[in-house]
């Protein structure tokens, strides 16, 4: 059974600081995804990481993938209040593209 663990589950940051969210998964995965969810809203796709060593960046967020360690990181640089949201990682195996999600990391950026 494919399991995905995120940590921390809760993260309170000050604006301007850097931090990293970690996503570990239990077995070989085909793809790794990062999503953002604002309170009361749906999920928005941030990144899709396809291979070992993949790195993607969008604004203050950078995601990386280490398939050997079964680990992905989401690094936040110089956090701003607008980044406050819940961040989910998810992995998939096989041809049906079923995603297994982590429990999410609730990020709060304080002024």
């Amino acid at each position, binding site marked *: 059974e494919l399991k995905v663990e995120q940590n921390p589950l809760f993260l309170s940051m000050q604006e301007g600081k850097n931090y990293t969210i970690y996503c570990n998964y239990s077995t070989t995965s085909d793809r790794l995804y990062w*999503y953002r969810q604002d309170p*009361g809203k749906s999920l*928005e796709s941030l990144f*899709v990481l396809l291979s070992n060593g993949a790195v993607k960046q969008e604004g203050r967020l950078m995601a990386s993938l280490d398939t050997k360690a079964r680990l992905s990181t989401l690094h936040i640089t110089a956090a701003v209040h607008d980044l406050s949201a819940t961040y989910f990682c998810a992995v998939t195996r096989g*041809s049906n*593209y079923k995603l297994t999600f982590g429990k999410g990391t609730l990020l709060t950026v304080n002024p």
Partner: protein
Amino acid sequence: SQTIHQWPATLVQPVGSPLSLECTVEGTSNPNLYWYRQAAGRGLQLLFYSVGIGQISSEVPQNLSASRPQDRQFILSSKKLLLSDSGFYLCAWSVDRPPETQYFGPGTRLLVL
């Protein structure tokens, strides 16, 4: 461009009543379709997925069912709702074309009283 619709946006239903939630996708053909549930303060649970018309796979045994009567229409139903069915129901779609991701609809918030 592709869009995904869900309705209703919000629903309050008594225990024991039936349920029908609808999801439609525009701008793509033969998508994979998914129903997820997100209970308050919890992660996402995959309920059903479909790779084609009439093809439904159930991930979690429960009092819910799903149907796909048309290529871009996915329906979630129940004959009798339970209190534990309350949650945020999300429909998603994907296509068999890498790179691949799932795109989520706006969701239906269901409260069973």
